[in-house]
């Protein structure tokens, strides 16, 4: 009914997975700067892909199955990407040197502060001319 893969394939994949596990631990103990995370996640994605393709026979499955596998990660990517549009831009200013958004404040820029309390009345007069 389905493709029967040779035993050697399973052992080979297992071997590769073991090597990559060792590699990811090894990498964690070396300072790679900003690359620590991409390396770890890259290795994990590769490992997962190997499991999906060979252990789970996705490589030998129908196109529809492959489509569904792709779909899950596509929508996961949408969830991440669009949520990140919020989190990655919260710290940005709405205009150079200006204020953060109304109610969008946390990690956003502060208004250039203009009014110290003691000058309040003084300013009031100014504003009223």
């Amino acid at each position, binding site marked *: 009914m389905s493709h029967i893969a040779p035993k050697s394939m399973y052992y080979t994949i297992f071997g590769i997975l073991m090597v990559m596990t060792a590699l990811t631990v090894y990498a964690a103990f070396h300072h790679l700067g900003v690359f620590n995370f991409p390396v770890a996640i890259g290795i994990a994605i590769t490992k997962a892909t190997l499991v999906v393709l060979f252990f789970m026979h996705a490589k030998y499955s129908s196109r529809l199955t492959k489509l569904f596998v792709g779909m899950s990660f596509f929508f996961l990517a949408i969830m991440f990407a669009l949520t990140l549009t919020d989190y990655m831009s919260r*710290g940005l*200013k*709405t*205009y150079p*040197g*200006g*204020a*953060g*958004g*109304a*109610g*969008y*404040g*946390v*990690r*956003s*820029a*502060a*208004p*250039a*502060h*203009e*009014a*110290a*309390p*003691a*000058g*309040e*009345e*003084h*300013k*009031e007069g*100014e*504003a*009223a001319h």
Partner: protein
Amino acid sequence: MAADVDRLYWFIVGVTAFFAILVCVLVVYFAVRYRTQDPLKVGSPITGSIPLELAWSVIPFLISVVIFAWAAQVFFDLSRPPDQTLEIYATGKRWMWKFQHLDGKAEINELHVPLGRPVKVTFTSEDVLHSLFFPSFRVKADAIPGRYSTVWFNATKTGEWHIFCAEYCGTRHSGMIGTVTVMEPAAYQAWLSGAGGGGTLASRGERLFSELACNTCHLGDGSGRGPSLFNKFGTQEQLANGSVVNVDESYVRESILTPQMKVVAGYQPVMPTFQGLLNEESVMALIEYVKSLQSSTGGTATTNATGAPAAAPAQEKR
């Protein structure tokens, strides 16, 4: 601002009314014109029309883009307080709004503002989510515990207007309402100089600053165990972990409550946390004090808004 929102609103009312009436008239007309009692009669074999499909995809899309762009413009104006606003702090807690004027006057569920002057309210919540809603000014924003939100408005008519809490917050959510009183500037001045207060917000912050012994480390010349806070607000700060942070209300708040999270480069994470020791009002007073430590004028008014960040001295170096 409210007028801008209304203009946009009525524009969308016009557009939607046009389409609603168009479709309704067509549906009713077709249903009457082509009605039949004979179940065996069949309709014309019309299967579709590509030009029509394109037309009613593209035209609504173009109209949508117009609405989107216009609404985005209004939104940015709503999100962007002008310079020289009158600043007010507020705290939402179940189930009341506490407003704090810079001169020290505090109000509960009441807010007095002058006519014709932009007012900016910076606020947070002490417990759950709230939303500060001024329907007459067409603005609202959620109050989120641990963060500051802002709304701004410019009242154009004197009178009393509603303040609502628009984010559900429990039992007396519908009782978390208040009144904003818009006054003539002169009347506002009179009101402001009336009873109440107890020193400006900044002076209260200053008092706290020494009571909590902040001043033993944050020395004015930067020689203490903590960085100097003079001319710090509105600048950018280099952090120990290499990133850069804007010194704004949120950062000052964070530095007081979770001081080890974003340590300034060159300093040790030795500051104790003040979480649980300060209420939101005290934190706001401290922030206001830090804000007041501006430039050579030293606590008096500096209205030079545009120049402030650029003119600030370079970051602390050790």
